[in-house]
């Protein structure tokens, strides 16, 4: 068959609402950006945790599950979504034995405000431990609360894949 090289046209930006819908993820949702990476075993992979189209959120507790035998968490940095006049409270806890990373972020004090829209909550640096595919995902145990501590229903929990070569 004679043919020129053609692009496949795979539109899978995790923040593409249409693409997310196709995967069953509807806002408000928590997703990874990017949600896939091909790296060498020596590389570090930077993945952002994104909140997609959230409204009136004052606190977030996000659990990221990963394969502890294949990945390690190098560091976790606060993202830009909770930036503002009030400095947010941001802590993380990494259970490297079970592969559970917990990210907690909230505004402190009585003037605590709420956030909305789409933005990065945290930046996670993963390090592959062995070659091959490994998956990480946002657990459905993750919680978003409004400033009055009412739970916000999440309609999607993103996942990501790293191919270490």
């Amino acid at each position, binding site marked *: 068959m004679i043919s020129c*090289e*053609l692009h496949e046209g795979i539109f899978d*930006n995790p923040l593409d*609402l249409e693409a997310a819908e196709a995967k069953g993820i509807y806002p408000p949702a928590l997703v990874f950006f990017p949600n896939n990476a091909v790296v060498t075993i020596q590389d570090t992979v930077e993945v952002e945790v994104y909140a997609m*189209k959230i409204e009136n959120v004052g606190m977030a507790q996000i659990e990221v599950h990963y394969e502890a035998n294949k990945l390690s968490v190098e560091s976790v940095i606060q993202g830009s979504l909770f930036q503002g006049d009030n400095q947010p409270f941001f802590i993380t806890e990494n259970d490297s034995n079970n592969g559970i990373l917990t990210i907690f972020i909230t505004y402190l004090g009585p003037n605590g405000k709420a956030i909305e829209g789409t*933005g990065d909550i945290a930046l996670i640096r993963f390090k592959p431990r062995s070659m091959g595919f490994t998956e990480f995902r946002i657990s459905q145990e993750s919680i978003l609360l409004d400033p009055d501590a009412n739970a916000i229903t999440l309609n999607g929990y993103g996942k990501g894949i790293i191919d270490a070569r």
Partner: protein
Amino acid sequence: MQRFLQSLPYLLFLSLILIFSNINAQDRLYNTMAVLVFEGNGIGQSESDAITDQFTIELKNTQSVLAIVSKEIVKEILDERQLSDKICTNESCAMEIGEILGVDHVVIGSVTKSENWFSMEVEIISVETGVVDSRKSFYMGDPNGLIVEIGLLAWNLMNKVSPHSLLEEKAKKEREAQLLAEQRAAEAAREARRRLRKAKLGAMLRSTVLPGWGQFNSGRKGWGWFWLGSELAIGGAAYMTYTEYDKAYNEFEEIYPNYNAATDHEEIAALKAQAIKVLDEEMKSNEQLLMLAYAGGAFWVANMVHAYVSGQILEQSSAEKSGFVLVYDPQLKSPQLRFYIALD
């Protein structure tokens, strides 16, 4: 009845005249005669000598000449007069040489060879009067029957009925000649078919290399231009389509990474729409290219088949037998560009 009886003596007289004149014509006896070497056109001297010898032998067989001066004696006498190289072609020359040789009559003749055809003419010339006593000629094809024809010519020249053996030999030779002609015709037909096949294959090969070339070479310039033009048109269209494809491909290469890197929903949607548009153009261009490639291929193959089918042997005309050629001149020791033109 009475009128018939009255005219009977006249009728008898006329009959006698006819009978005697015929006998006279058939049984004329020449006293002395010399056969001069025939003029040869298209044949060598040795062949001319051989034909003259054969004619002389057959002339003796007719027993119409009492004495024929042998070729050796003729040569000896003419050598003495330094005339041995002289070829006699007319009556005055025949009279001159006949007088030298001391004969009553001289036979002169000519043999002409044109490709595979021979023509021959001989005549008996009276040395005394210069009058042509008898002239005969023949025209035949195959050299295979030439000896027989020479023999028959000798008998005819003497106005004598040719011997049965010679006539049978002639018939045999004619059959052989007919067979040979048929063989040659078959061979020529085979050769023509071979040349035609070669020309057809050559035309197809040329058109395989360049569409229309075979047709041009076969003298079908219209078709040549058609196939070449078609391929050029398809090639041009393919080039334009490829340009569109390339543009769309490069645009997608620019847009897609931006789409993947974008985090704003509106920007993502806009970039995606652009990417889908150029992707669509890319696919359309690719489909068009594919169609043009198939069309080009089909035309190419059709051109090859047409070149074979319409291939013919093209004889070069004089106008085409001219041109320029680069040659090396050994005298000037330098290359020269020369113009040549065929004069046939």
